């Protein structure tokens, strides 16, 4: 891999031993993936995936401390994935709370380390850092050093930025050095689609199931999706961006998709059209039957598959302001239609603090609160890392949450039905 003089000097210790080790790590990582060179990060801000001070990763926090002690700091401010705990807003028994405190015993220490390393602000813990209210929004063509699969796939696909699916630590090292290895999704060739996804459905497919079907089929490849513009139009409105956010998160978690193109909608597809499709690309046809097959293939790993749900999570990835308003109205309408006032299952909607703060200024906030649902900035995945919580029958409309935890997936309409009906 070619290194210019500045990069070679850093590798040889011109900026100290710690920077040399960081550079060596990036060079070895790049050479493993046959990168030709290091390219400068052009985005204003980074995004780190590790937000939690979990007790199983003591050596990680030790390494973080050693970096700080050596005077190393990120060259760019950054946002971080959501917090693992929110004792005030998410239901938890005293014993569950105690386990949270033990499980995340390094949290305060790590929050402090993130502050010293250069986090954008105390409220900057979210997986949807690209929302307007949070403001970590890369430009088209920007080179990023991000991790968090759902954020990376969104930045690549919807914003047209360029970022590989990085591991934790590697993304921080990139932000410290200011460069990333050039391979895969940062190259034109690596952004070509090797799969064509043809959608033949009567109505707009559920984003989370469609993303799941695509991810399970193409795994880490790049898909070119045809037939969605019929339902979504050609403009990237907030509603369309939200749909793509949820679909993309499912492609990235059910498979390992880092970039997708949607014909007539996403920026590169609009610009390059079919030229984005690689020669010999395979085709996958998705119709109503296929979507149903995929949803029915999800196993239920609850001890008692017929157990009454004890908690519902909506918002993995974190919800947008529009989605918060929309869910408030939908839950309210569902309850009214049944002559009920409160949701039948404790329900938590999750979003970032800046989005929640904006939401609190809207009339829908009062509507949501009146239904008994709660708002939180937590990461539902981290909530379910608590072994006592993972034993609970938890339901969700998130395919990512379903994939990584014991939570049971329901489509939006199914979830609303459960929240609205009497549970005996």
């Amino acid at each position: 891999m070619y290194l210019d003089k500045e990069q070679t000097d850093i590798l040889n210790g011109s900026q100290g031993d710690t920077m040399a080790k960081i550079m060596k790590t990036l060079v070895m990582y790049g050479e493993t993936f046959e990168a030709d060179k290091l390219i400068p990060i052009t985005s204003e801000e980074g995004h780190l995936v590790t937000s939690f001070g979990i007790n199983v990763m003591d050596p990680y926090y030790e390494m973080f401390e050693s970096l700080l002690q050596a005077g190393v700091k990120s060259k760019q401010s950054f946002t971080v994935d959501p917090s693992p705990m929110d004792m005030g807003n998410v239901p938890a028994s005293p014993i569950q709370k105690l386990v949270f405190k033990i499980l995340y015993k390094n949290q305060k220490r790590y929050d402090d380390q993130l502050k010293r390393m250069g986090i954008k602000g105390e409220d900057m813990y979210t997986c949807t850092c690209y929302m307007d209210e949070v403001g970590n929004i890369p430009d088209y063509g920007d080179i990023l050093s991000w991790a968090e699969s759902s954020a990376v796939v969104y930045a690549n696909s919807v914003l047209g930025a360029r970022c590989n699916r990085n591991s934790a630590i590697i993304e921080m090292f990139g932000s410290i050095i200011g460069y990333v290895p050039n391979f895969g999704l940062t190259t034109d060739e690596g952004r070509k689609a090797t799969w064509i996804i043809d959608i033949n459905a009567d109505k707009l497919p559920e984003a989370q199931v469609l993303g799941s079907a695509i991810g399970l089929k193409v795994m880490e490849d790049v898909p070119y999706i045809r037939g969605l513009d019929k339902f979504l139009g050609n403009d990237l409105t907030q509603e369309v961006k939200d749909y793509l956010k949820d679909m993309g998160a499912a492609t990235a978690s059910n498979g390992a998709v880092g970039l997708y193109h949607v014909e007539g909608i996403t920026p590169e597809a609009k610009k390059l059209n079919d030229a984005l499709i690689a020669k010999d690309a395979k085709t996958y046809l998705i119709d109503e039957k296929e979507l149903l097959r995929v949803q029915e293939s999800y196993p239920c790993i609850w001890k008692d598959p017929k157990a009454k749900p004890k908690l519902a999570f909506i918002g993995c990835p974190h919800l947008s302001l529009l989605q918060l308003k929309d869910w408030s109205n939908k839950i309210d309408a569902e309850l009214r239609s049944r002559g009920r006032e409160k949701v039948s299952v404790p329900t938590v909607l999750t979003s970032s603090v800046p989005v929640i703060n904006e939401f609190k200024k809207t009339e829908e906030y009062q509507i949501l609160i009146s239904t008994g649902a709660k708002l939180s900035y937590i990461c539902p995945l981290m909530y379910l890392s608590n072994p006592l919580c993972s034993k609970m029958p938890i339901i969700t409309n998130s395919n990512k949450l379903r994939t990584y935890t014991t939570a049971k997936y329901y489509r939006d309409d199914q979830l609303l039905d459960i929240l609205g009906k009497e549970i005996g």
Partner: protein
Amino acid sequence: MREFKGRVVVPGTVTATALVSRQGFNTLASFKKALLAKKLDAPCSDQDNKDIYEKPMAKKALCLPKTIGSTTGGIVLYCASEMGASPACLLFSESIDSLAAAGAILSDIWTSTSMPTVDRLGQEFLDYVKEGMRITIKENGIVEVD
């Protein structure tokens, strides 16, 4: 004895006993309990992985197709190395994935534990190798299986 040729990701030579995961190796799920309880023999805690569930992973030649699961996988391997509970080496039949690569490289550069790593050994390697076989990694990505 058979010899296989792969690509060196992290250099080094070592001899160890084979532990074989024929399915994607979920790094976080596999090391979670070992890290939590500080078990230095690192019994695999991934109950979905029937090949190696509850078997000690530390100091073994871990043979696998690739790793899967959480993006914390790289840090988990690093943490296991730092506490002395990592495999002796990693042997991938497929091309290494970015999370495992990060873990192997971080271990090499940031800890005193060497975990030589070779990838692209091919499906034939994974079909041939059995648990308990003696494996030697030599220079240049040559892997001997006894």
